[in-house]
């Protein structure tokens, strides 16, 4: 090995602490990049493969009851590649030992052939035998959640009739990656089931023999979806079409798309932050190194090494750090990605999910990271390049402190000598101090913003279940019922208060902008399920018109005073024109609120309710559940606590869990910067500090000179960190908010307090580490070397 490479290795070894810290920052950045990018492409590819292998439909067209002959008509529509008709309906499963019935979707499978579309992946057991009507295949995740086994009996209520089934298989399906009960938007494996049954049996149960109530349509490659949907709707209109919708509007696909978009956004934003921090750290470390090795650089050049050779020598050091970090990061990234793939597979119920990063994108990511991390050092290296040997060989002039002259006079009177030394250093070199201040502030801003987001999620939950939904139990009906049904609930055991509500699923339209959602009708001055603004004030519902949530108004590009077109997807499917009364800042979902009576009036359906919120005496819950189970009109019963637990699980798994990692990582970055700043100040001043000790300063006084600077840097950084955190929080909150949930952007002092405390803790720790080194300094040796 050449002598210069020996020098390289020993220099690296000498700064191993700092080099290691920087390499770690690079590693974390690359790890996140590899993990997220890999996860992203794995998810996208797996989803595509899963959809394709199990032939997921491109268009779903629910109807009330259409004759099978219509399927041939649909198949003739230009652009349609395949059509399948099936029967689908809601069911309530009576789980043994459980008070509440569980909602389920019953879905038909053709008896004598494989389904042309929406096939299932049988994970255990066997397919249905065509002649048996009592056999069911159950969604794997539901079976797991309840510990069901093959051969178990299952009792379900379908269309008012109780029936018994035997489980012959467990399955997964691409349309149930994400299972939510109709009308809910939080997945919960335990509270929603899918039952696959023979078509004949199901058609009999739902009274659609010789007919279908959902058409599945696959498009030809390259066919446009809108004309096909329009043609299907036209064909099925007189059979009670509920309006076809495309795959992207299917709940399951929508959720996974949100997840993918969230990953994509994070993958774009987060790793570059780490690269920037690594570049900054490398920059200050290399600057310091080059400064202290001025003479060596001059010397090597004096020997006849070229400018390129010398610069390359130092650049190699940067490269070694960056490449080691990148390699470590790649390994960690692949490892973490594999783990994350398992989490995702379980969470999204994929039958398979292989984490894959292709070599070329790995190489690309690594080299981009290395380049980015070393970009800052190139500035320093250009200085190495330009340094002429004669200049380098001359010892640098003692730092000129005359610039701080005016201040000196004023300081003299009320500061002791060590304090003056601290202040003079700061005024002498404001640029360097500024760099450290910025670095620490960014680290702190990052962690405080992340913590704000975390408590923002918590607040959303608290508000949703403490302020917005104050009921104990909600009951939904299969179809809109007379208001009397709801008020009858008041006579059930334990019910204290009943509040009816009317939800209407609809396509909301403003010109070309549409949103498939619902209009929620609330009673005037609702108490159990309220419409509230972000600031917790009641949204006043006008006599006429609809109040839209902000994200919904953004999607529809609509403003108060405009007219919203509501294409109702149930009953007689009227198309309503409703004026937009106002826009509200809500937290959860993208609701459109109306007064229940004005919604019913517009629908020309007086006094209809679709659900009711109950306040109940918790002691009497079992009796209440038992009574509800007996009511044929009840489609589902949800306990508020169960819903809350489900949301918490949702937010803590998948990409949501990344937030915790981010907080930890931001803390590491902050510590890295603080520690580096302390070490560098120590390196620059070790001679001066030794001199102080020689002339009689105590260890404590000497440490003060060094750590005083650190203290000032930290004190300056904290307010700046609060500011950065505040704006970063808005950015992150906007990035994380979707039309499904929003993060409230209220100022959270506790997040900033904690981040500030973390910075101070990091400083104390760094100060302590460096002080140990000050105490160890060998005075004679330090003074003998000339630096």
């Amino acid at each position, binding site marked *: 090995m*050449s*002598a*210069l490479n*020996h*020098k390289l290795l*020993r*220099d690296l070894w*000498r700064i191993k602490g700092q080099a290691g810290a920087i390499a770690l920052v690079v590693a974390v950045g690359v790890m996140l990049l590899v993990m997220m990018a890999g996860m992203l492409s794995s998810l996208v590819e797996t989803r595509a493969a899963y959809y394709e292998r199990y032939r997921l439909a491109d268009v779903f067209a629910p109807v009330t009851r259409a004759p099978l002959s219509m399927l041939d008509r649909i198949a003739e529509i230009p652009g349609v590649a395949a059509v399948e008709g099936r029967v689908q309906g809601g069911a309530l499963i009576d789980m043994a030992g459980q008070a509440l019935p569980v909602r389920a979707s019953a879905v038909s499978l053709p008896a004598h052939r494989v389904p042309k579309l929406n096939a299932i992946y049988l994970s255990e057991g066997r397919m249905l035998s065509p002649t048996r009507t009592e056999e069911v295949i159950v969604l794997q995740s539901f079976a797991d959640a309840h510990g069901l086994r093959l051969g178990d009996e299952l009792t379900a209520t379908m269309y008012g009739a109780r029936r018994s089934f035997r489980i012959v298989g467990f399955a997964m399906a691409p349309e149930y990656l994400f299972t939510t009960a109709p009308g809910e938007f939080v997945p919960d494996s335990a509270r929603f089931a899918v039952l696959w049954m023979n078509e004949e049996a199901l058609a009999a149960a739902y009274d659609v023999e010789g007919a279908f109530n959902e058409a599945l349509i696959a498009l030809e490659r390259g066919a446009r979806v809108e004309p096909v949907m329009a043609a299907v709707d036209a064909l099925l209109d007189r059979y009670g079409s509920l309006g076809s919708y495309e795959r992207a509007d299917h709940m399951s696909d929508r959720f996974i798309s949100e997840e993918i978009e969230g990953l994509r956004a994070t993958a774009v934003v987060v790793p570059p932050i780490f690269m920037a921090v690594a570049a900054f750290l490398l920059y200050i470390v290399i600057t310091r190194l080059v400064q202290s090795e001025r*003479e*060596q650089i*001059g*010397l*090597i*050049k*004096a*020997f*006849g*090494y*070229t*400018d390129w050779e010398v610069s390359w020598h130092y650049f190699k050091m940067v490269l070694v750090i960056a490449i080691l970090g990148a390699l470590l990061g790649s390994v960690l990234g692949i490892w973490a990605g594999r783990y994350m793939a398992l989490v995702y597979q379980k969470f999204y119920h994929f039958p398979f999910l292989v984490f894959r990063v292709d070599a070329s994108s790995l190489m690309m990511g690594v080299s981009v990271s290395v380049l980015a991390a070393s970009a800052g050092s190139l500035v320093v290296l250009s200085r190495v390049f330009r340094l*002429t*040997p*004669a*200049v380098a*060989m001359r010892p640098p002039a003692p730092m000129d402190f005359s610039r701080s002259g005016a201040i000196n006079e004023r300081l003299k009177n009320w500061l002791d000598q060590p304090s003056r030394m601290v202040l003079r250093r700061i005024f002498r070199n404001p640029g360097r101090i500024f760099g450290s201040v910025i670095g620490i502030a960014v680290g702190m801003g990052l962690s405080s913003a992340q913590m704000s987001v975390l408590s923002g999620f918590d607040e959303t939950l608290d508000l949703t279940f403490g302020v917005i939904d104050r009921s104990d139990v909600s009951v939904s009906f299969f179809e809109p019922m007379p208001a009397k049904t709801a008020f009858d609930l008041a006579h059930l055991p334990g019910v204290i208060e009943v509040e009816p509500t009317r939800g209407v699923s609809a396509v909301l339209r403003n010109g070309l902008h549409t949103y498939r959602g619902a209009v929620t009708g609330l009673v005037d001055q609702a108490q159990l399920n309220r419409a509230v603004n972000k600031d917790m004030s009641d949204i006043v519902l006008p006599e006429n018109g609809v109040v839209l949530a902000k994200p919904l108004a953004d999607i529809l590009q609509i403003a108060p005073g405009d007219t919203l077109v509501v294409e109702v997807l149930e009953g007689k499917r009227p198309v309503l024109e409703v004026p937009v009364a106002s826009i509200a800042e809500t937290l959860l979902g993208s609701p459109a609120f109306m007064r229940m009576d004005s919604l019913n009036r517009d629908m020309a359906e007086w006094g209809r309710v679709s659900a009711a919120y109950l306040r109940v005496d918790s002691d009497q819950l079992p009796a209440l559940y038992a009574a509800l189970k007996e009511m044929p009109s009840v489609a589902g019963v949800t306990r508020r606590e169960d819903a809350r637990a489900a949301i918490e699980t949702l937010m803590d798994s998948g990409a949501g869990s990344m937030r915790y990692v981010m907080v930890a990582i931001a803390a590491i970055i902050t510590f890295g910067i603080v520690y580096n700043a302390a070490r560098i100040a120590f390196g620059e001043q070790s001679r001066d500090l030794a001199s102080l000790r020689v002339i009689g300063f105590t260890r404590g006084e000497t440490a003060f000179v060094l750590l005083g600077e650190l203290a000032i840097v930290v004190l300056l950084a904290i307010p700046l960190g609060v500011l950065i955190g505040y704006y970063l929080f808005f950015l992150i909150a906007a990035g994380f908010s979707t039309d499904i949930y929003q993060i409230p952007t209220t100022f959270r002092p506790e997040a900033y307090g904690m981040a500030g405390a973390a910075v101070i803790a990091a400083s104390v720790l760094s100060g302590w580490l460096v002080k140990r080194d000050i105490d160890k300094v060998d005075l004679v*040796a330090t003074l003998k*070397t*000339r630096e």
Partner: protein
Amino acid sequence: MAKDISNIFSVHGLTKVYGEGEAAVHALRGVDLDIPKGEIVVLLGPSGSGKSTLLNIIGGLDRATDGEALFEEQSLSTMSDRDLTRYRRDHVGFVFQFYNLMPSLTARENVELVTEIADDPMDVDEALRLVGLGERMDHFPAQMSGGEQQRVAIARAIAKNPTVLFCDEPTGALDSKTGRAVLHVLNDVNAKLGATVMIVTHAAATAAMAHRVIHFADGAIRSVETNETRLSPDEIEW
């Protein structure tokens, strides 16, 4: 103008000004000088008189403001940076007052740093033996005394078989005994390798070992004398 090929350096009207305007420092004020090959040349003069500046310029470390410096008939002033680098790499060895060893390299590696890029280097061990450091080759600078460090520096400077060896106050930081040992080595390098050796010093007694003594003052040459008889370093008063 006829040039004497036996001169390794020819310097004409060499001027060096640092800074500008009122702050300008005239470090060299028109130096004319011829230095024959193979001599030991001692530069004497008070501190700040421009000795290091001259050495730096003819050593290819720095450029003159005006005037001309020729090395074996080639003008250093008109050389490109690349050529100057080549010149240093192929012909010049440096020894400095503060040794300037790489602290992170052992004695042997410090020498190798130079032999690796030289055309026709001597054996590293031999160079170290020449300066009497055969056994301490694997020590780091921090583990050596000042005299030993300076001898490593000399070994490093001679290991490339330089045409010319520049020594800027090589004994400045050493006691008389080690200083003398260092001068011995320089004398040997001149005698055995035939290198031209230029030594800057303000220890006037050193002049006794030189072929030629140049007195410097205020950026110019006061006088040049040649010694009829030279003393060995052992005989020099310290």
